[in-house]
């Protein structure tokens, strides 16, 4: 009798557990979220000839430095995403007396990624000195029409600098160096990128892969470093990928050294991260 009761209790417990934990299946009827969720729209315009509305999205508002942008194209007739198009960029800074461009990266493909076209512009100064416009040329491969949207973008200096430039004493070239910090810094190993462009003319800033980069992360207020960091190595299109180790949260400074043919081209600059 007693044994039976124990067995039964165990059975009841087991069944209850199955009922409680077994019914935790998630339903699959969730509506896919909009591809722009998580991004903010920093500007928009209309590529008239292409009958396409152009919206520019980014994780943050535009700042001086390397901005990863996501261009969403909408068919102006039915307001649906245009997911096949040739998109090319041309940034321009109009300073009244003169104008210049900035480094940029066109979308890599004519097919959108998650309905948007990833690209980038490295704004080399803030809008306070003039007006930044981004000319987005759209060759809409759905309706086979072409057009250009020239969109004004308000660029601000970030609270922590994300870009600097230097003139190399070795080749007298002017280099623009941008920092792509870790997406979410952790106490641990963090991936980061440095993007280097070299000024050829006022309108041409091609990617540069000729430099050797090393860095030392320190906590300036604590006077210590961290071990086992990996210097950025060129991985294509001026992007140098490295790893920085943070041994604690707080204010860290990555002091960089750039070498051109083994000679130091610049060692006066740094990037800061606080987390």
């Amino acid at each position: 009798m007693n044994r039976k009761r124990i067995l039964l209790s165990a059975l009841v417990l087991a069944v209850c557990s199955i009922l409680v934990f077994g019914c935790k299946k998630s339903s699959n009827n969730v509506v896919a979220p909009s591809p722009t969720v998580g991004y903010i729209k920093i500007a928009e315009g209309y590529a008239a000839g292409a009958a396409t509305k152009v919206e520019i999205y980014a994780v943050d508002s535009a700042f001086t430095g390397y901005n990863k942008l996501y261009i969403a194209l909408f068919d102006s007739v039915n307001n649906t995403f245009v997911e096949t198009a040739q998109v090319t960029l041309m940034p321009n800074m109009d300073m009244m007396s003169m104008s210049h461009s900035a480094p940029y990266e066109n979308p890599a493909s004519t097919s959108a990624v998650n309905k948007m076209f990833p690209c980038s512009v490295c704004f080399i100064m803030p809008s306070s000195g003039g007006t930044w416009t981004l000319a987005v040329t759209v060759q809409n491969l759905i309706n086979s029409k072409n057009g250009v949207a020239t969109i004004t973008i308000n660029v601000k200096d970030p609270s922590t600098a994300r870009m600097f430039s230097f003139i190399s004493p070795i080749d007298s070239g002017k280099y623009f160096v941008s920092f792509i910090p870790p997406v979410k810094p952790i106490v641990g190993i963090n991936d980061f990128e440095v993007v280097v462009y070299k000024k050829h003319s006022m309108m041409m800033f091609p990617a540069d892969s000729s430099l050797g980069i090393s860095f030392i992360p320190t906590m300036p207020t604590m006077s210590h470093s961290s071990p086992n960091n990996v210097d950025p190595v060129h991985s294509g299109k001026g992007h140098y990928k490295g790893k920085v180790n943070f041994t604690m949260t707080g204010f860290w400074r990555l002091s960089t050294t750039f070498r051109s043919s083994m000679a130091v081209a610049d060692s006066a600059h740094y990037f800061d991260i606080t987390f």
Partner: protein
Amino acid sequence: MICLLVFLYSAGNAQDYKKYPDKDTTVNVQLNEVTIKGPLIGSDQRIKDFYMANKAATTEDVLSKLPEINMIRRGSYGVEPLIRTYNTGQINLLVDGMRIHGACTDKMDPASIYIEPKNLQGIHIQTTHGAVAGSTIGGTVDFKLREADCGCGKRVTGYVSSGYQSAARSLFETAGLNIGSSKWAIRSNITYRGAEDYRSGGGEIVPYSRYSKLNYGLSAKYIFATNWYTKADFIYDDGWNIGYPALPMDVGYAAARIAAVSIVKQKVNAKWSNSEYKLYANNVYHLMDDTHRDNLAIHMDMPGHSNTFGSYANATLQFDHDQNMQFRADISTTELTASMTMHQLNQPPMYMLTWPDNRSIQAGFGAIYNNRFDTLSSITISARLDQFVNYLTSRAGKDQLSVLQKSTDDISRTLKNISTEMAHHFSPRCEISVIAGYAERMPSSSELYGFYLFNAFDNYDYVGSTTLKKEQAYKADINMQYTVSKIHFSFTSFATKIDNYILGIHQPVFNAMTIGANGVKTYENIEFAYMAGMEAGVFYKAEHKFQFISTFKYNYGTDNNSEHLPLVAPFKNVTSIRKQLKHWAMQLDAESACAQYKVNKSSGETPTREFFIAHVRGGYFGSLSQKPFGIDCGIENIFDVAYKEHLDWGKVSRPGRNLYIQVSYSF
């Protein structure tokens, strides 16, 4: 493993008892109802009076008098016991068989601080093997908790004791109550200790040496039948504002909660005996504090947590009149986490894990076989197998440790321990025993996972290594006992070679995190290290009236480059003479140590001077309203010598002349 535990307990229960004294090299210092055994101390009460001379003594005071024990001192409180030259990671420090892991990354909280002498039945020290207590190369210190007393016909008993010591203007107040009947008993006690900054020899006040603590102990017992009972123990220990003059930080609050339930069956029948099954849990919380320090470079919060659960079963199997075998099976798991948050003006908090969240799971099985060939010779073989799995329990912990570019995978190690002891009486006066053993130990959590742990001893930050191999020790001991009339001599000599000895090695590429530190060391296995030494004792006793005890100890250690190991105590002698009258007692103690020049230069260790200090103690033991009443008083460090022992960190002077009085009343 659980099956094994249950089996051992039930096997022990199944039947009976007839037991020989252990032939292993065990030192039992039983503080109450004393029976002391072991080669060094002999089989009587030779050193009981010596150790219990001062009723105001802490557990650390008692430990420090034992020849096998050396103490690392960072302040008045939390003195860390070592066995010979073996450090905390190399020994087991147990409370009634329970594993307790301190919650402090800086070893400020050895388990000995949670045990008040009033909670203590005895101190069990084992130097030759870890068959019962757990794989160890250095040995085991086990604090046996005092059980509730079912009383000798007296239902309620109790005591009150109050004392004062002048060096630290400290108070020691304790009271206890025991309620017992023939079937059950409950024992509770409460102890308060509070000390101000103490005065060192010569009169200088040592700043940051104060402490306060409160300790409650509760023990209950229920008797099922003769020699068959269950008991529950609970210890609640709170300490606050504890100063560590040798460290850059103090402790704001430290708490330990220790609980255990046991079933004990003794003397059952002729086959099985002494079975015990215990289930235990303990939790330690430790919060370092620097808010009382002047000229602070940076303010830090450093909390640490330790949680341990475990269980063990013991039983002894009697084969025949001359042979028996003791079994032990145990499992335990410890979870540790400790962090540091630094606060700087106008800066965001700087946070890191000093012990990345980690867990250690251990399961072991050990056995000791005793065979008495004849009345003159015996052999004892001890063996143990332990399986450890240590792993990081949080993503944050793994992320952080990956900075060191060592594996963050689970760490699994199997440990083997074996030891043989042969003993022979060459004459009725002389017994010699020889012990040879092989032992392994698991690297400690700090050695595996420690992340920039500041060590004030050598002023380096220490970083763990998850790829550490286990230490392997080849041990040899020889022990001799000789008795002439009322004089007893004992001599023990030991030598150990430890392969894969774990030592901090300076890494110039690493950058110290602690402001002002010399650099960073990582724990590494060096090829080997040697340790050797001796302990000797002379005991004289003329009935109760006159006793003389003198103990000597010497330790020596070198690494594979023939450099002296750090923190090796020099030659030390403790001598005591006690004269007892009917109600009065008088005792003179002398402690002296040679200078230590054999220092580890690469860690910045410096020589320590020799010292000689003397204490005088007196006592009156009478009655008040026909109840026992006693006064203990004395002067420690009579000549107010400014001295430090070699294992005292930071070269902080020890207390100077200390007048104490302790008044006790029992009912």
